[in-house]
């Protein structure tokens, strides 16, 4: 006999999904229009990246794998800008390259926002930073880049042969890379394997929060030095380099939406438990 009370528990489990989606969208709009600016705690994984960047000397070369796609641009781009800002402040030379197909266009969108930093530091393309473009083959390409970069690239993204680029004349293989950082939603482990495990190159990773748990064991064992935990890590990095930007805005969004999803999880389960208890 389904009493009226039964109806409540069942109704509680059948809120139409469109209402859930609208609530989630609203929970993201409000903080973006009314930012709250909450204190951001720095995690040890981000701290170890920041400390490692501060060991860069002016002549050191850092490989930055622009491997994100438009989907994760919202946190990978601010993360790359914050890390590159700190590297430029240290005077390090930056070699940008991509092993994911949307990388080249993501680099150009990032450059639009980062060009001012290069100009302020008098960074000249070809002498202080360069972009090599996309190479196919995923882990095979990363292995080739580690053992000899010229097997993967014969020219930079704009067609200039590597030997004509001053910076690339002294960049050949793993021995010339002081450290590498990969901004990826694909396989961070493949970078650790081909650079750190094989040649001991200092390897940093910036990946989505959902992937961080799967590579925490490699950070714990020291195979990964710095680990940016998606948008949360990018915001921490922006705070550390004292350049708050898009990533810090994201942290306000996280508060409302996470609590809302928590409420959905609880409601769904209360309805389920009570209905089952009533059902017996």
């Amino acid at each position, binding site marked *: 006999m389904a009493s009226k009370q039964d109806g409540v528990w069942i109704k509680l489990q059948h809120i139409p999904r469109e209402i859930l989606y609208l609530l989630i969208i609203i929970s993201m709009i409000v903080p973006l229009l009314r930012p709250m600016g909450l204190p951001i705690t720095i995690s040890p994984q981000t701290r170890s990246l920041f400390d490692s960047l501060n060991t860069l000397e002016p002549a050191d070369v850092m490989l930055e794998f622009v491997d994100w796609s438009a989907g994760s641009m919202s946190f990978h781009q601010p993360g790359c800008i914050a890390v590159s800002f700190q590297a430029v402040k240290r005077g390090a030379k930056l070699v940008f390259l991509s092993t994911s*197909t949307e990388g080249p266009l993501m680099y150009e969108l990032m450059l639009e926002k980062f060009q001012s930093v290069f100009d302020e530091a008098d960074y000249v393309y070809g002498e202080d930073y360069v972009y090599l473009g*996309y190479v*196919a083959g995923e882990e095979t390409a990363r292995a080739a880049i580690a053992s000899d970069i010229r097997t993967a690239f014969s020219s930079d993204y704009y067609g200039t042969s590597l030997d004509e680029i001053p910076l690339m004349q002294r960049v050949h293989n793993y021995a010339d890379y002081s450290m590498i950082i990969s901004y990826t939603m694909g396989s961070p*482990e493949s970078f650790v394997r*081909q650079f750190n495990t094989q040649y001991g190159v200092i390897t940093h990773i910036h990946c*989505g929060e959902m992937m961080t748990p799967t590579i925490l064991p*490699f950070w714990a064992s020291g195979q990964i030095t710095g680990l940016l935990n998606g948008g949360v890590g990018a915001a921490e990095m922006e705070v550390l380099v004292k350049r708050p930007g*898009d990533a810090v805005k994201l942290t306000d969004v*996280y508060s409302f939406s996470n609590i809302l999803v928590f409420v959905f999880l609880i409601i769904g389960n209360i309805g389920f438990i009570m209905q089952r208890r009533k059902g017996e």
Partner: protein
Amino acid sequence: MISTDPSIWVMAFFTIAITSLAFRDNPLAKFAEHTFLAAQAGNLITMAWRNIRSIGLQPLMKGSMTMLIPLLFGVALYTRYSKRYIWVSRYPTAMMVGIGTGVTVRAFVEFQFIQQIIDTFKPLNSFNNIFFVATVVICLTYFIYSLTPKSPALEKPMSYVTRLGRYLMMIAFGASMANTVITRVGQYAGRIMFLLYDWLGLG
């Protein structure tokens, strides 16, 4: 102030069309999805051609004849579409699987086996360390399929250990699921930012 740039409007249209995908399947969403599939495939072709030209064809033109081998192997991949010569596509497939397996497997012993074992040597002087080492060993027994103790005396406790391993892993999966929420929120918030700031000019 609302944007007057037509390309911003096209971008906003595609953003809303794909978002409507989740609400209900509709012709706009189908149109946007077809556009995405086509544009992505076109981008793949563009990036693939750059690689083939700059690493394969240009060195060949400059005289390094060994480049003929990978170029011919690459073309051979397309015999997959002919009934008679499909076996020819096995050569490039065999080479790619050989390189791919070799490049990955060679690292696994050190990367994902020995170095992980070394880092699990933790002095048993704190609860966290004892819990850590115990969890690794217990969860590891869950993945043992045939070399399990057959004697009835041991079989019962062993099943409890593997069940405990499964519980410990489910706790980890719950935490990972929550982390996935924050990632997707962060990604989609980028689109809300685009709609609010670039399209509608608010904020």
